[in-house]
């Protein structure tokens, strides 16, 4: 479904990686590994179309990506919190959904936040939450935004053991539903059966 052929990326004059190839089908996930500065984040950003690629080809359902169709089925969670500090978790979730053109009722948003362990925090400004809780607000989007492919950069950072476990369960459920995932992480992930790519 997703196939990457001979991808090369550079930062300035320095080639970060070249000739990266892999393909993923439904229910498969890829664990991108590598030391700091190896280009994991750049690979993920190139994959979703945020960073320029030097060479190579990415295709999604047989069509050259990143395309509009690809973006519609993609959920990318990067390094950044991507939540607004002045707004409450509930507002963040609902406004993000409406910007994406999705209708999300208050009840659905609240259920997602409760699932992420943010019960009682939904009406506080995100500013007063801890780093891990901010991350959970972002991760709640996994529950509210339907997507076929999840691309997550260091998604397990700043999370406590329970949240790591929960995120692992979410990824597994996503794969069981026929989804795909590309993850980077330095720590062992609570998701088995993934393919590995070392940069």
């Amino acid at each position: 479904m997703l196939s990457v052929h001979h991808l090369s990326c550079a930062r300035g004059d320095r080639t970060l990686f070249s000739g990266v190839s892999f393909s993923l089908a439904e229910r498969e996930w890829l664990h991108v590994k590598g030391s700091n500065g190896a280009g994991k984040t750049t690979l993920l950003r190139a994959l979703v179309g945020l960073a320029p690629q030097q060479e190579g080809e990415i295709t999604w359902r047989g069509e050259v990506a990143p395309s509009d169709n690809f973006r519609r089925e993609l959920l990318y969670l990067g390094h950044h919190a991507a939540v607004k500090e002045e707004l409450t978790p509930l507002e963040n979730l609902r406004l993000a959904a409406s910007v994406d053109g999705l209708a999300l009722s208050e009840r659905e948003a609240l259920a997602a936040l409760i699932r992420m362990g943010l019960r009682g925090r939904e009406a506080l400004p995100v500013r007063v939450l801890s780093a891990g809780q901010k991350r959970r607000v972002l991760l709640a989007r996994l529950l509210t935004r339907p997507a076929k492919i999840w691309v997550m950069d260091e998604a397990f950072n700043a999370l406590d053991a329970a949240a790591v476990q929960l995120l692992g369960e979410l990824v597994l459920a996503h794969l069981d539903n026929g989804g795909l995932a590309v993850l980077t992480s330095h720590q062992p992930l609570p998701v088995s059966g993934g393919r590995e790519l070392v940069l």
Partner: protein
Amino acid sequence: MNAVWAMARRDLLLALRRKSEVLTALFFFVIVCSLFPLGIGPEPALLRKIAPGVLWVAALLATLLGLPRMFAADHQDGTLEQMALSPSPLGLLVAGKILAHWLVSGLPLVLLAPVLGIQFDLAPDALGVLVLALLLGTPLLSLIGAIGAALTLGVRGGGVLLALLVLPLYVPALIFGAGAVEAHIAGLAFAGHFSLLGAMLAVALFFAPWATTAALRIALES
């Protein structure tokens, strides 16, 4: 179109939570406009003569004050990335942000202008022309400013660069905006000035979101 409203609503809510940023630019506008009558002294003829120019220059500078923040927060916290990857077209989301920017920092200037114009002894009908000219001109300032804000995004010392980039582009709006009021005071026809302002606004409405989107994509690549 829903994407435009959704984005505008989000930015308006954010502006409501960060009132100080908005109020700073408005107070700046009020104070700059009030300094001129105080500094020049009570000579009604001279004040009437300089009023359109002073009010327009102050509006330009007040708009410029808030421009660097137009995309900076979204860029910093990663929301801009999410916007670029959203199923909604980035161009429409950018249009929504520009709309919110105008509602928050352009429209209040239009509403304040007649009050400040009284300090310059402008006649009521001249104040009317001033408000109409600003109503056509301030969206133009937001649209052109958005291109500059996107181009200087993530650049160190971007604020000064932004001023150098955007102020020359504001010159036509200034000439025809202030010119309309001056023409009216001099008893001449001002419809031509409005037509030109309107034409510039129409062109900017079409091109500015597109150019801003292109600049934002470049900023995201680095």
